[in-house]
């Protein structure tokens, strides 16, 4: 493997931050051939949130410089999902250049155009097609230039490896660099560029090694906490003991007596800073503070009743037929209530930022999924004009939807402004658990019915606090109603005591757990094999294909559950991708502990750009999913978060690793769909169904801890 300097995720410390005005933007781009493009549905929807001063008709661009190098500028960030590689693959293929000649500049508000953020499996789905079109457009420009240069019509020319040549005589040729040199051609993508079809792929569709791998295995990859400007201070901020608490009085005199400590007490923020982070920690422990703490309103056990009590009216999401009619036709009725507590993101890298004030510009290196919204929030918090704040996003050590609020970046910027020194804020693990925006605790209630022919004729679905994602009906149910009561993004007042937010496939994990558990219960009652029951009840072709593909690989043998074999099936749709899982588990009846031995995951995600990357995401989804399924739950009492570290918040480990087999179901007719989240959504359901098959006990609450399984076995 060669050293790969072409992955420029985090430019090194620049001498000074640069600000950006709209009129300067195109001038700043420098020479070459530039194609501006808009690559994000979410950005189109969120136009009004854009920063004044930023161009509004594109959110990324591609540039071919006079040396022939291709650079993609995008506000998206790399947090492990692999877009540093997959996006470069797309551009390389459409442009007909080698992967090595592509550089990526990402997540830097001074160099990249506005972008709303990196979340929701959107990068490949929306960004990808636009990037490919931009690259195809650039190639068309190059062809025209080459045709003038070589004085021959474009249709006599071919393009390969950064070079345009006469098809009949490869020696008559010109390089991209020669063509781009001295040019200043700016195109805005108009949607007419023709991109490659799947059989024409050269770089896409091929397994490609991660371009950031070398930096990451050598420890050279820089994360926000690794930026080390001279004179920097490490800050520790005084936290409330509970959400909803208020600071009554504070005495920092003992802390201030520690040599080298800087104490800040301003505008409600109390912090201690030191050149040694451990000394700052010691100083923090010396602060005496009194708080008003409200009495606990509810806790991790009573939260579900609370959610139902504040739920209010709800919204209808999907309606078909008539529930009363469905009930009339039902020969058996089923009622299920499924619950799931709060979940933490718990990335191994805690929220971290380094802020430095220089020449009137506040530059913040931040571990964030949303550099541009964060730039605005920082500017507002420190009273700077937006263009005088620059957010640079180095590699992000995992996000999963949790690195969006950016409080740590605001804290670092405030402290850098107050002290005049570069300041790092790196949350402790306890702070990370306290300040996280949790996946909301949530409840799903389902009333369903089967008719005399074993077909589902009633589906009355209500979801509280999780939102509707992946609750969409794909079974053929004539009488179907889906209602939601509060969701992240539009929470019902007083529903939660602390921040909630998106967590890898927000809401979908519980929705699929509930639906697929209920389906399984109906199959068992009808005495039909659970796979057959699903196939009998859905005519959705993509779903049938992934179910059949999973069954083929798994070696599914027909039986009515519980068969005591411990096998289960579950399926779902998320981010346009169809996924079916089959699992094999064993349950220790004495302890209730569940061991997942094998999981097969079959997925139809449309055209696959990087099959190896896609499989890696599927394996990661399954493995991460076992955490929410079996062990992860935030403990709290009122506003106090009792979960403080990984000893009580148990994330998946090597010892719990099943054999994971992945199957990509070919579907080249469909543009690429989401890959970072879909496979996680049926994990809870497939394990619950396999536990039922093993023991005859059905679990209605996730995580399915040993204690809960034991209880269910009674």
């Amino acid at each position: 493997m060669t050293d790969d300097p072409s992955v420029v995720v985090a430019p090194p410390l620049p001498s000074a931050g640069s600000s950006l005005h709209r009129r300067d933007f195109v001038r700043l781009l420098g020479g070459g051939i530039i194609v501006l493009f808009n690559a994000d549905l979410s950005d189109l929807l969120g136009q009004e949130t854009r920063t004044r001063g930023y161009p509004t008709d594109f959110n990324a661009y591609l540039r071919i410089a006079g040396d022939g190098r291709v650079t993609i500028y995008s506000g998206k960030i790399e947090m492990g999902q692999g877009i540093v590689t997959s996006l470069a693959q797309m551009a390389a293929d459409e442009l007909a250049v080698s992967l090595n000649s592509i550089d990526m500049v990402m997540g830097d508000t001074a160099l990249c155009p506005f972008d709303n953020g990196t979340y929701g499996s959107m990068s490949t789905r929306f960004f990808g097609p636009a990037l490919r079109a931009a690259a195809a457009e650039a190639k068309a420009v190059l062809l025209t230039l080459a045709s003038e240069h070589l004085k021959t019509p474009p249709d006599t020319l071919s393009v390969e490896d950064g070079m345009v040549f006469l098809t009949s005589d490869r020696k008559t040729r010109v390089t991209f660099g020669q063509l781009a040199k001295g040019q200043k051609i700016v195109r805005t993508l108009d949607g007419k560029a023709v991109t490659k079809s799947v059989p024409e792929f050269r770089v896409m569709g091929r397994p490609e090694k991660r371009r950031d791998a070398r930096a990451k295995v050598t420890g050279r990859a820089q994360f926000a906490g690794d930026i080390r400007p001279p004179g920097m201070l490490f800050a520790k901020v005084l936290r409330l003991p509970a959400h909803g608490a208020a600071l009554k009085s504070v005495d920092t005199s003992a802390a201030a007596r520690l040599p080298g400590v800087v104490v800040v007490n301003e505008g409600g923020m109390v912090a201690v800073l030191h050149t040694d982070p451990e000394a700052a920690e010691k100083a923090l422990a010396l602060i005496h503070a009194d708080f008003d703490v409200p009495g606990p309103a509810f806790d991790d056990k009573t939260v579900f009743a609370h959610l139902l009590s504040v739920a209010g009216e709800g919204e209808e999401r999907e309606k078909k037929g008539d529930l009363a009619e469905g009930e009339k036709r039902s020969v058996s009725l089923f009622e299920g209530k499924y619950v799931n507590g709060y979940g933490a993101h718990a990335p191994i890298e805690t929220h971290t930022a380094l802020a430095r004030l220089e020449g009137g510009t506040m530059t913040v290196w931040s571990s964030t999924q949303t550099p541009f919204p964060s730039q605005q929030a920082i500017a507002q918090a420190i009273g700077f004009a937006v263009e005088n704040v620059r957010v640079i996003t180095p590699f992000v050590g995992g996000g999963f939807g949790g690195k969006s609020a950016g409080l740590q970046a605001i804290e670092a910027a405030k402290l850098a402004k107050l002290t005049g020194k570069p300041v790092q804020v790196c949350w402790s693990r306890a702070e990370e658990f306290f300040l996280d925006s949790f996946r909301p605790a949530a409840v799903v209630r389902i009333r369903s019915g089967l008719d005399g022919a074993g077909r589902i004729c009633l589906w009355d679905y209500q979801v509280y606090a999780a939102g509707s994602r992946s609750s969409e009906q794909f079974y053929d149910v004539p009488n179907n109603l889906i209602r939601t009561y509060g969701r992240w993004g539009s929470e019902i007042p007083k529903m939660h005591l602390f921040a909630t937010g998106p967590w890898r496939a927000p809401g979908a994990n519980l929705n699929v757990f509930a639906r697929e558990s209920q389906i399984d219960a109906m199959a068992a009652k009808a005495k039909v094999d659970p796979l057959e029951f699903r196939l009998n009840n859905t005519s959705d072709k993509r779903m049938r294909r992934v179910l059949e593909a999973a069954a083929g690989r798994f070696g599914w043998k027909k039986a009515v559950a519980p068969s005591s074999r411990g096998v289960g099936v579950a399926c779902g749709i998320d981010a346009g991708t169809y996924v079916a899982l089959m699992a094999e588990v064993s349950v220790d009846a004495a302890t209730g502990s569940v061991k997942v031995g094998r999981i097969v995951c079959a997925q139809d995600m449309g055209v696959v750009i990087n099959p190896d990357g896609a499989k890696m995401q599927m394996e990661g989804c399954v493995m991460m999913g076992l955490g929410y399924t079996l062990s992860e739950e935030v403990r709290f009492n009122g506003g106090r978060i009792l979960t403080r570290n990984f000893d009580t918040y148990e994330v998946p480990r090597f010892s719990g690793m099943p054999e994971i087999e992945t199957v990509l179901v070919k579907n080249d007719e469909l543009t690429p769909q989401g890959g970072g989240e879909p496979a996680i959504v049926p994990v809870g359901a497939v394990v619950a169904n396999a536990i039922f098959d093993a023991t005859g006990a059905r679990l209605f609450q996730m995580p399915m801890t040993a204690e809960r399984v034991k209880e269910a076995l009674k």
Partner: protein
Amino acid sequence: MRENSISFRLNGKPIRLDVDGDRTLLWVLRTDLGLTGTKFGCGESLCGACTVVVSKEAVRSCQVPMKAVRGKDVTTIEGLAPNGKLHPLQEAFADTGGLQCGFCTPGMIMNAYALLLKTPKPTRSQIRAGMDDNLCRCAAHHRIVQAIERVSAPA
């Protein structure tokens, strides 16, 4: 010898530091020495992100006071590829995709490095047991095991 002077070997080279012996190795590496490849993840010996190798043993550097490394041999991720040539484990992690965000990766590799020093040909269950206290939130476990197996498998 000055009370606060601590001599040890770091990545194969002798080094002497004037530091308080109660400070932890993790933060001395990351701040005083600028070796930021070793990561902070939990501060309580619960995640393994800070793993380095001290005299052939994988240790959690967030729990090791400087006075405990006096006279010892400390190897960090930066010491595995001293001349730019990757250690076979690093090659294998990169090739198999045993990383996603990469934040747990230095700790994973150092833990695996110590595991293989002790058990050059571990079984899969020895690998799982030996790596169990290193957490990877991106859930790259599958590929990490493959990477370690690739290095340790008989040629």
